[in-house]
């Protein structure tokens, strides 16, 4: 593991702007990563897919349950 990967700062999630469909936008999450050496698009895609589940969870709690 390189140094950048261990010393990244974790951003307080409460201060992030969240568009519809999003809990933690990739553009902000990316800042916590070291430079991505492989396929950044893949990391972004999977992050956003799972982030949408977090979004749906709270809105489904509000709307359906």
């Amino acid at each position, binding site marked *: 593991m390189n140094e950048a990967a261990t010393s990244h700062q974790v951003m307080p999630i409460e201060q992030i702007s969240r568009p519809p469909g999003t809990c933690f936008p990739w553009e902000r999450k990316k800042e916590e990563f070291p430079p991505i050496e492989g396929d950044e698009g893949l990391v972004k895609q999977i992050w956003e897919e799972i982030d949408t589940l977090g*979004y749906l969870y*709270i809105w489904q*709690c*509000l*709307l359906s349950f």
Partner: protein
Amino acid sequence: MSDEKEKLYQERLQRYVTAMRNKKPDRIPIRPFVAEFTAKYAGYTCQEVTHDYRKAFDAACKCAADFDWDAVVPNMVYVWTGLTTAIGLTYYAIPGVHLPADKPFQYLEPPEEQAFMKPEEYDLLVADPTGYLYNVWLPRVSRDVVTPGEPATMRNNLAFVKGGMAMMRYFDAFGEQIARLRRESGTVSALAGILKAPFDIIADKLRGYKGLCMDLYRQPKKVEAACEALAPHLLKVALLTSDPNKQLPVGLWMHRGCMPFLSPQQFERFYWPTLKWIIEDLWRQGIQTLFYAEGEWNPNLKYIAQLPELSIIYHVDRGDIFEVYRTVGEKFCISGGIPNDLLAFGTPDEVREYCKKVIDGVARNGGYIMDASAIMQDDTKVENVRAMTEFTREYGVY
């Protein structure tokens, strides 16, 4: 799946979609919104179908097969209290726990002073609706979730893990339930997706109806801003949960927009603009809305008439269905209108007579779906549902 059942399914889907597009199918589709009625018919208690969704699914399948309906909601007893218990939600009275096992679940609105959102928090909600829900609302509505900044607890952690996993299990199970209805009885799933009006969400789950009514006078601009802030999120959820084939409508369940909860003037200012915006956007993307107008909505018909042609299926509860037909029948498919008190306390002959009146009055040119006025609970008589179904199947042929 047998060829026979698949053929039946395709016929029913065609019938249902044709009616929803305000056209004339081969006969009137029958799509009853049956909730705790399914438990009564299948021999379960309300506790069983509310707390064990597998029994609710079984009951829905049994009703769909035995009554031979065209379309049903895969589980109209939608609130699975196993899930709400895992999250620690405090606003339900659960059959068999807080209520007798044979009583339907109840939503408990807190007293005004204990509303889940405080009157001074509109700006917080508007600035970041999703953050507000996670950081402020959820800790207030759950007995287990702690407010950010407070010490984490095991109960908090479990509420998220168990709540998330239970929700995923529940929604995944709907896929198989929909396939089962198709396979076993050729029944179509009636809806896909969830939508509520921004105003209703503030009334139901945030400020409470009484608190919101005070806000309409004390801080009306904040209420408008909150509706505008919630609308893009409610649209997003509707889109994320909608039918990818765009054949089935999104279910819009409305509570507080009608008389006497809001005057038409209040409706026009607070309720309607953001809801209209959502419905229009869904329709631009080819998605219809099942406009479940619970209560007496006829005073608001002039607003509903503003919606694009075919954008909604107008479900009539207590409004005069014949006036609805005269006002918006050219634009929208209509469903419902068979009074629940008649289905609960009337006779099969009276039910047949009323169904004839509705069919003759609003359905002769197509664009009508047979159903009760409101969701049918366990007070609905089986023989009356059978009369409604059999009469429509015989008399509702075009």
